[in-house]
């Protein structure tokens, strides 16, 4: 019998939807499918789209997908919206802005609830992206939960991260704060027909000028992953700060768009492709892939270790240790030692 995973590889869309659910729910069947599909991954360009709620991420994804379709690239969209912290329910509304993509079998849109994750993505997002990758989607756009200042998980997952801003959302101090702008490979000023777009653009550009053009380094284990791209003395702002490949450093370009009428979309799509080329030329593509797979592996390991631990330590023993911590007769770190050594007091 042909497995569900093999059916996905043959391009069956019903099976694809099914496998995505199995993986999202972290079932044994889902994990088995991932094992079959994993060797087929590593081909797609993963494009993250993040930014504050209401900046136009979904509309932008809609337009970008149409643009990539004109180049005949198969496009998948994973759109994450928040789950309620109270009921666990969710209202996933990103499709409302993506109606134009309906009726095209070269596009597959999947909505996802964050299910309690706080980094702007859901726990299973990375695995779902792998499924799309294996299924032959060439561009996979990942739209995060409407993000504030620190939902930066997307930068770990995506090859190219777009940070979407809109006029009127903050001044130049917001722009130099740490966090979301730091992860941008491309900064998009959407709703560029709104008043104040010049100021927003100026604030973002001057932020880029303040920054030393340091190669991007992910902090990891409290340490860093050495970037391959070093040095480079490109001066930002020059030539509209457009992404350059002539030096070995990438200066995030600031691109104006109007997602509702398509202004700036072709240019934005071009910059995404250009960034992909830059990553491959500079060797950063491999560095990012390694960092991503390492953190995915670590997350999987962490949950496997937790499961192993829970299987080994009976619940009432765990409860007794919690009691002791509650009575202050044991500190949490003592408790951890006791639990790991299997010899609670």
């Amino acid at each position, binding site marked *: 019998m042909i497995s569900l995973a093999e059916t996905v590889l043959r391009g069956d*869309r*019903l099976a694809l*939807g*099914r496998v*995505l*659910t199995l993986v999202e*729910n*972290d*079932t044994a069947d889902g994990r088995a499918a991932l094992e079959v599909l994993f060797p087929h991954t590593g081909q797609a360009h993963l494009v993250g789209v993040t930014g504050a709620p209401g900046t136009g991420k979904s509309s932008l994804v809609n337009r970008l997908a149409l643009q990539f379709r004109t180049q005949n690239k198969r496009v998948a969209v994973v759109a994450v919206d928040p*789950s*309620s*912290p*109270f*009921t*666990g*329910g*969710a*209202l*996933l*509304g990103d*499709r*409302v802005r993506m*109606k134009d993509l*309906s*009726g095209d079998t070269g596009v*597959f*849109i*999947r*909505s996802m*609830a964050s*299910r*309690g994750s706080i980094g702007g993505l859901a*726990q299973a997002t990375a695995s779902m992206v792998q499924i799309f990758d294996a299924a032959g989607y060439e561009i996979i756009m990942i739209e995060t939960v409407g993000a504030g200042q620190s939902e930066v998980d997307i930068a770990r997952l995506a090859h190219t991260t777009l940070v979407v801003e809109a006029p009127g959302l903050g001044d130049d101090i917001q722009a130099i704060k740490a966090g979301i702008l730091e992860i941008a490979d491309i900064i998009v000023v959407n709703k560029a027909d709104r008043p104040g777009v010049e100021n927003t653009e100026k604030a973002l550009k001057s932020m880029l000028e303040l920054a030393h053009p340091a190669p991007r380094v992910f902090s990891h284990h409290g340490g860093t992953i050495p970037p391959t791209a070093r040095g480079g003395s490109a001066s930002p702002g020059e030539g509209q700060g457009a992404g350059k490949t002539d030096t070995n450093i990438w200066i995030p370009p600031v691109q104006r768009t109007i997602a509702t009428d398509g202004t700036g979309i072709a240019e934005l799509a071009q910059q995404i492709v250009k960034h992909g080329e830059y990553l491959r030329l500079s060797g950063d593509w491999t560095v990012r892939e390694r960092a991503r797979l390492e953190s995915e592996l670590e997350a999987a390991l962490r949950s496997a270790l937790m499961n192993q631990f829970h299987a080994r330590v009976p619940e009432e023993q765990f409860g007794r240790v919690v009691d002791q911590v509650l009575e202050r007769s044991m500190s949490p770190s003592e408790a951890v030692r006791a639990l790991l050594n299997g010899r609670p007091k």
Partner: protein
Amino acid sequence: MVKEQSTLPEKKIRVLVAKPGLDGHDRGAKVVARALRDAGMEVIYTGLRQTPEMIAEAALQEDVDVVGLSILSGAHMALAPRIMDLLKANGQTNVKVFIGGIVPDEDIPRLMEMGIAGIYGPGASTEDIVKDIQNAVK
């Protein structure tokens, strides 16, 4: 207090709430979507003016357990069978389809015969809808 969310895998009921046809009034659809959300379901909302093809495609991509159709235009006898056929053609025979809106009593038996799982008119209680959906996907 915010209840801590379990990180354990769990099966969530996924519902597509869709508005087929041309009527532009989606207050009812939004009320129901919100109620289902509050009942812990994951609700995908499509927005207005969807064709049956768009709805079937969204149901396929989202792998939903339930499709909820909001129809106020009176076109339910044209739209509902078309959507049922498309779902079937796509292999989604397990999807339960519910209708909310203005449906005259005499149409109800024919719709139920087509396999519609539930029909709700004005004044229906969202609690009943939630319960019926939970029972239907069990």
